[in-house]
C-alpha cells in the first residue's frame, strides 16, 4: 500500500504531537503521566520520554521521532521545542501552498499528475530551506543576533570562571521545563548547591560534570514516601549497600578494596587439587583458616578499618574482620568500585604471597564510615577524601511516589548533560567542532570567495599554496582536514584573545543582575564590513546553482576555513594585514562556549526580527519566502510561553515592546530572569530544518511486509 507523503499528512501528525508537547512547555507547563506495560507509573515533562512512551505508529511520526532522537543524541535537550517548531513550519508552508493551489487547479491537471507536481514543488522548497540554513541563518546569527549574547563566565580571560548567579539562572530555566511547577526552584537550588559543593576548584568544573554524568546512578539515592522538601545533599559517598559487619571506628580510618575473596580456596580455576588423605584435607583447611586469619590480622596492623568488596566474602572472612575490628561492605557493583577508585585513586588489594607481608598495601583514608538510615533501609556512608577535582557528595532525592523521584533524577541527570554541552571546551577541537555543528557561517565563505575574486586580501602566494584546493577537489580536502587538526590549536588562542579584546565594547544589560556581566560581543565588526558583504550574499546564489547538494556545501566550508587558518599560521610575517580581517571573520563565525540569552522567547523574537529585516532587504523571492516562513514559525514558542499571561505580560505586548526596542537600537529588556543556551536553541533550529527537508523530499510512503533490515524473528511478528 502506498500513501502520498505530503505536507498535509505531516502537519496532521505534527499538530497532534504539538498539542501534547505544548501542554508541558515552559515554566507554566503541566505534568504528563505515563504508564508502562509493567504497571509502573512515571511522571514526566521530558519531550523525548513522552515521544518514546507514545509508541507512534504513523510513518511520518516515525520519521519525526527519528529526527528528534538523532538531535537528542547530539545535544540532549530541546525535544519539545523541536516538535513545536516543526509543526509551525509545516503549518506555515501549508498555508503558503494553499494559496498557490488555486492556480494549479485552474490549470485542470489530473490529480495524480498534480501530486507529482506538488512533490516537485516541495523538493524545490526543501532545497531553499537547505540554502537558508547554510547561508542565511548563520549569517544572521553572526551579524545581528550575536550582539545580544551574554556569557555565563565571569570574565573573558582564558581561565574561565563560573558565576554562581548566572549558573543558577541557567539551571532554573532548565528545571522549569523538566520538573513540576512547585518543585523547580527547589530542585534547581539543590543542584546548584550540589555542584558547587562537589567542585574542588573553580576552573576544573568540566571534570566534575563528566564524573557526575558517568556515575550519576551511584551518586544519588531515591527515597519514596517522604515529601520532596526532605531531599538533601549529604557529604561523602553513600553506597547502596549495608555493612555486613559494622565496627564503629574513628580517627585514622583506612580502607582497602577487594575484588576477590580474601579466603584462599582449594583450587583456582584451571588447576586441580588432589586429595590423598583425610589428614591432608584437614591440614589444608587449617592452613586456609590460618591464612585468612593472618591476612586479616595484617590488615588490622595496617590500620585498615573498612574492607570494601565487590564479591561476597565467606563467613570466615566476616568473622575475622569482626574480630579485628574491620567493617565490611560486600557485593559492590563494578560502577561503585570504579567510582571509588576514581575519587581516591585506590587500586584493589592484592593478596600477599605466602607469609611475606612486605608489599606496600594500597589504602586510602576516609574521614568517617557509618551507617546511614533512610526510610528504614540502611546504607554505608563513607567520607572519602578526594584526590581529584571532585569532592564526593550524594543527593538524597525524596518524593511521595517513585514516579516523581524518577522524574527528578532524570531532570538532574539531564541538567548535567546540558551543562556539559554549554561548557564544552572549544580550545582543542574548535575548528572541527565548528565545521561539524555548522557554526561557521557562510558569509565567511562568500567573504573569502569574494577576496579570491577581487584578490584584494589574498595575495598570490596563498593562492599558489592552495591552488590545488578547488571547490570539488576531494583529495585536497582530506589533506586540508589534516591541516585543520594541526593548526587549529595554534591559531585559536590568539584569535580568541583578540576577539575578547576587540569585542567587549558595548554592553547589553537587560536586568540589574547582569550589570557585572561582561557581554561577550562576538561581533563588533564595523558596519563597513557588513555593508561590504551584504550585496555579495544577495548576488552570490546566482553564481551558485541551488541544486548543489549539502555535502559539497559542507566541504566548501571545511576547505575555506582551513585556508584561513593556514594563512594565519604559515605566513606569520605576511599576515599582519591579513590577520585582522581573516582572524576576525573567523572568530566571529562561532558561538562561543557559555553563550546565553535571557529566557522567555528572546532568542526566537530576536531571530524573527532579524530574519524579517533580512527578508526585506533580500531580492530573491525564495530566500524571502523561506525567511518569512521561518521567522513566523519562530514566534510559536513565545506565543505558547506567554499564553496564560495577561495585560502587560501578554505576548503581543512583549512582542511589540521588543520590536520597538530593537528598532530604536535600545537594549531589549526581558521581563523574566533566567538564561538559556544559545547554541542549544540554534542546534534545535538547524535540526528542525533538516528534519523538514527530509519530510518534504518524501513523495510516497510505501508500506512493506518485511523490515528493511534483516531482523528475522521480528518479521514474523510484523506479518501477524
Amino acid at each position, binding site marked *: 500500500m502506498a500513501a502520498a507523503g505530503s505536507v498535509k499528512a505531516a502537519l496532521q501528525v505534527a499538530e497532534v504531537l504539538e*498539542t501534547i508537547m505544548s501542554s*508541558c512547555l515552559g515554566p*507554566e507547563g*503541566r*505534568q*504528563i*503521566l*505515563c504508564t*508502562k506495560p509493567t*504497571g509502573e*507509573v512515571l*511522571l514526566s515533562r521530558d519531550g523525548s520520554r*513522552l515521544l518514546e512512551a*507514545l*509508541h*507512534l*505508529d504513523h510513518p511520518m511520526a*516515525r520519521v519525526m*521521532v*527519528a529526527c528528534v*532522537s538523532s538531535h537528542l543524541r547530539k545535544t540532549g535537550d530541546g525535544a519539545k521545542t523541536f516538535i513545536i517548531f516543526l509543526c509551525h513550519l509545516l503549518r506555515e508552508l501549508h498555508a503558503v501552498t494553499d494559496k498557490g493551489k488555486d492556480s494549479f487547479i485552474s490549470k485542470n491537471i489530473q490529480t495524480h499528475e498534480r501530486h507529482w507536481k506538488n512533490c516537485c514543488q516541495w523538493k524545490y522548497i526543501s532545497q531553499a530551506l537547505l540554502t537558508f540554513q547554510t547561508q542565511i541563518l548563520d549569517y544572521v546569527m553572526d551579524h545581528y543576533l550575536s550582539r545580544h549574547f551574554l556569557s555565563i563566565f565571569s570574565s573573558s580571560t582564558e581561565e574561565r570562571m563560573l558565576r554562581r548567579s548566572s549558573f543558577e539562572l541557567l539551571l532554573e530555566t532548565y528545571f522549569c521545563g523538566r520538573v*513540576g511547577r*512547585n518543585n523547580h526552584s527547589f530542585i534547581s537550588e539543590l543542584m546548584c548547591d550540589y555542584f558547587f559543593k562537589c567542585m574542588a576548584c573553580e576552573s576544573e568544573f568540566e571534570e566534575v560534570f563528566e564524573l557526575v554524568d558517568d556515575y550519576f546512578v551511584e551518586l544519588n539515592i531515591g527515597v*519514596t*514516601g517522604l*515529601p*520532596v522538601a526532605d531531599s538533601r545533599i549529604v557529604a561523602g559517598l553513600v553506597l547502596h549497600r549495608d555493612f555486613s559487619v559494622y565496627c564503629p571506628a574513628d580517627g585514622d580510618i583506612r580502607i582497602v578494596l577487594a575484588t576477590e575473596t580474601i579466603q584462599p*580456596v*582449594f*583450587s*583456582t*580455576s*584451571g588447576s*586441580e*587439587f*588432589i*586429595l590423598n*588423605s*583425610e589428614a591432608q*584435607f*584437614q591440614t589444608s583447611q587449617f592452613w586456609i*583458616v*590460618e591464612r585468612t586469619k593472618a591476612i586479616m590480622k595484617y590488615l588490622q596492623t595496617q590500620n585498615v578499618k573498612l574492607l570494601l568488596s565487590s564479591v561476597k566474602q*565467606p563467613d570466615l572472612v*566476616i*568473622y*575475622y574482620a*569482626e*574480630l579485628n575490628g574491620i567493617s565490611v561492605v560486600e557485593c559492590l557493583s563494578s560502577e561503585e568500585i570504579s567510582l571509588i577508585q576514581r575519587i581516591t585513586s585506590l587500586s584493589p588489594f592484592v593478596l600477599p604471597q605466602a607469609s611475606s607481608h612486605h608489599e606496600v598495601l594500597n589504602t586510602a583514608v576516609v574521614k568517617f564510615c557509618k551507617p546511614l538510615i533512610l*526510610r*528504614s533501609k540502611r546504607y554505608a556512608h563513607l567520607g572519602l577524601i578526594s584526590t581529584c577535582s571532585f569532592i564526593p557528595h550524594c543527593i538524597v532525592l525524596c518524593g*511521595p*511516589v*517513585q*514516579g*516523581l523521584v524518577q522524574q527528578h533524577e532524570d531532570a538532574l541527570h539531564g541538567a548535567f548533560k546540558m551543562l556539559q554541552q554549554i561548557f564544552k571546551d572549544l580550545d582543542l577541537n574548535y575548528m572541527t567542532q565548528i565545521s561539524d555543528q555548522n557554526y561557521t557561517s557562510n558569509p565567511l565563505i562568500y567573504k573569502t570567495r569574494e577576496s579570491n575574486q577581487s584578490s584584494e586580501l589574498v595575495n598570490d602566494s596563498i593562492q599558489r599554496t592552495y591552488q590545488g584546493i578547488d571547490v570539488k577537489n576531494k583529495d585536497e580536502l582530506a589533506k586540508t582536514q589534516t591541516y585543520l587538526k594541526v593548526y587549529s590549536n595554534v591559531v585559536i588562542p590568539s584569535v580568541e584573545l583578540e576577539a575578547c579584546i576587540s569585542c567587549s565594547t558595548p554592553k547589553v544589560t537587560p536586568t540589574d543582575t547582569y550589570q557585572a556581566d561582561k557581554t561577550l560581543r562576538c561581533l563588533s565588526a564595523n558596519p563597513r564590513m557588513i555593508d561590504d558583504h551584504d550585496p555579495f550574499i544577495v548576488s552570490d546564489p546566482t553564481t551558485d546553482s541551488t541544486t548543489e547538494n549539502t555535502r559539497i556545501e559542507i566541504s566548501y566550508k571545511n576547505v575555506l576555513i582551513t585556508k584561513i587558518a593556514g594563512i594565519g599560521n604559515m605566513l606569520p610575517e605576511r599576515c599582519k594585514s591579513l590577520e585582522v580581517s581573516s582572524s576576525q571573520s573567523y572568530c566571529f563565525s562561532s558561538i562561543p562556549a557559555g553563550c546565553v540569552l535571557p529566557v522567555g522567547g528572546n532568542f526566537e523574537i530576536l531571530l524573527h526580527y532579524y530574519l524579517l529585516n533580512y527578508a526585506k532587504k533580500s531580492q530573491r523571492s525564495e530566500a524571502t519566502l523561506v525567511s518569512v516562513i521561518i521567522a513566523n514559525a519562530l514566534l510559536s514558542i513565545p506565543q505558547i510561553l506567554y499564553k*496564560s499571561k495577561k495585560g502587560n505580560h501578554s505576548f503581543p505586548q512583549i512582542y511589540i515592546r521588543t520590536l520597538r526596542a530593537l528598532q530604536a537600537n535600545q537594549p531589549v529588556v526581558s521581563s523574566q530572569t533566567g538564561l538559556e543556551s544559545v547554541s542549544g536553541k540554534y542546534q534545535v533550529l538547524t535540526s528542525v530544518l533538516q528534519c523538514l527537508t527530509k519530510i518534504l523530499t518524501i513523495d510516497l510512503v510505501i508500506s512493506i511486509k518485511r*523490515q528493511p533490515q534483516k*531482523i528475522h524473528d521480528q518479521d514474523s*511478528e510484523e506479518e501477524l
Partner: protein
Amino acid sequence: MFRLEAKKPSLCKSEPLTSERVRATLSVLKGVLTSCYGPSGRLKQLHNGLGGSVRTTSQSSALLANLSVTHPILKILTTSVQNHVSCFSDCGLFTGILCCNLIENVHRMGLTPTTAIKLNKHLLSLCTSYLKSEVCGCRIPVNFSSTQILLCLVRSVLTSKPACMLTRKEIEHISTLILRAFLLTIPENTKDHIILGKSIIVPLKGQRVIDSTVLPGILIEMSEVQLMKILPFKKSDSFKVALFRVSLSGDLSDTGEGTVVVNYGVSLENAVLDQLLNLGRQLVGDHVDLVMCQKVIHPSLKQFLSMHHVTAIDRVGVALMEPLSKMTGTQPIGSLSSISPSSYGSVKDLCTEKFGFKWFFHLIPNEETVCSLLLGNRNDTVWDELKLTCETALHVLQLTIKEPCVLLGGGCTETHLAAYIRHQTLNKPESILKDGWCTQTELQLTTEAFCSALESLTGSLEHDGGEILTDMKYGHLWSVQADSPSVVHWPDLLSRCGCGLYSSQEELNWSFLRSAQRPFAPQPCLPHEAVGSANNLTLDCFTAKLSGLKVAVETANLILDLSYIIEDKN
C-alpha cells in the same frame, strides 16, 4: 526510542481529571478510605473469592496492599499513601482522605489547577511553620519523666483501629504492654546517642488477649519433645553462649573454581566430622553452656554436646541472629576452628515457658534491650490486625522519641489548623499576594478548598450520623449524637472535645462545622495546667501527621497538575 518491532501505540488522554469516570472512581476510593477512618470506622473484609484467608481490617496499609487499582491516577494516590505508611506506619488514611478531598474541592470550586497548586503549596508551608512554631495551639511537648502522654498516644493508636476488636479493658492492658515493651528497648547506660533495642512480637494465637504479656529477652518456639531433650539446665548465675553463623552440618564449603580430586578411600565426611568434633571439644573446653547456630548442627555434634551438658539449638534463622548477638554480646562465629574467646557472650538465665500448648525456650539477658511481646488473640485475622497495630504503636513511640512532641488527636488539630489558616489568609494575605500572580478571590477560594478539605476529613470521624461542631475559641472539634434534640443548650449535650482537652463547661460558642463560619483566630499556646490535668487525651504522632500532611498536599498537587495520561497498552 525509534522502534523497529511492532508495538501497539499508546493511548493518550487529555485533561484526565475532567472525565466523569475518573472522578467517580476517585470518589469510590475516597468512600472506602473515609468509612474506615477513626475509632468508629467501618471494617472492610478482604477475600479473593477462591477461598483462602479472609482479612478484616480498617487500616490503610492492609487495605491498599490488597486493593488492586487500575487507573493510573488512583495508582499514584495509593502508592503515595503506601509509601508514607511504610515510612511512618501511622496516618495513612489521613493522608489518603486529605488528598482525595483536596482534589475534589479544587475541582468543585472550579479553580484553575495552576494557581491552586501554587497556593496549596503556600498554605501547606503556613501549616507546617505553624505546627513547628512555639505558639502552636495543638502541639504538646512530651515529658519523658511521666508515662502519661506516651500511654495516651499508644491508647489513641489502639482505639483508632476498630478491627482489633478490643474491649476497653483489653485496650488498657495492651497499651501498657506496648509501652513496657518499648521502654525495655531503651538501653540503661546511654552514651551520646541512643541505639534502641528490639521488641519481637511472638504470636500466641488461640490465647486470650488479656493473657498477652511482655518478657525481657528472646523466646524461641520449640516442640515439647525437643525442649525435654535439652532439659534440665544446670544452675548458674551466668551462661556462656556461642552463636554460629556458619553451618555446623558438616557440608563442604566452597572449594573454588578449579577441580578437587578425591582419591578412592578418602572420606571427606569423616574428615569434616572430625573437625566438628574437635570444635565440640574446644567449646566444651571453653566452658560454653549454650551453642546456637543459624543453620543446621550435625546430629553427632549435637549428641557430643549434650553428653557434655552443653545445650545446642540450631536453625535459629537469620531474623533472630541480630537480636541474639546484640542481646548476648556474642560475635557470630564464622569459623570451624580456633574460636577466639572474645566471641563468646553470655545470658543471665535460661528457662522454659509454656503458653497454651506452645513451648518456648527463653533466654534472659543481663542487660535488657531486647524483649518479646507475646500477643494473644483467639482469632487469626484479628491477630494479624492486632500485630500490625502493635507495630504501628511501637513505631510511633520511636518517632516520638526522635521528635519529642505530639499533636492533639480526635480531629482537633485539623479543625484548629483550618481555623488558623482561614484567619491568616484573611488578615495577612500580603505575604502571598505580593508577587501578583494570583488575586484575592483566588486566594480566598483556594483557602476555602484547603480548609474544608481538612474539616471534612474530621467530619469523616463521625459515622453514625452525628453532627460535628467547632468552638469559636480554641477551634476544637465537638461531636453530638445523631438523635439529639434540635434546639438545646449546647453544654448539656457536649461533654469533651475530640481530643479530650477541654470540657463543655467553659463559656464557649459553638457552630456547625459544615455551616459557613466567620473566621476567628484560634487561641494559640496550650495552657500547661490543662495538659497536666487531663489524663485521657487522644493524641497523634507529630512526625507522622506532619509528613502525612505534606505528602497529601504534594500528591494532590501532582495529580491536579496532570494534563495528559499516556497509557502503554503493550
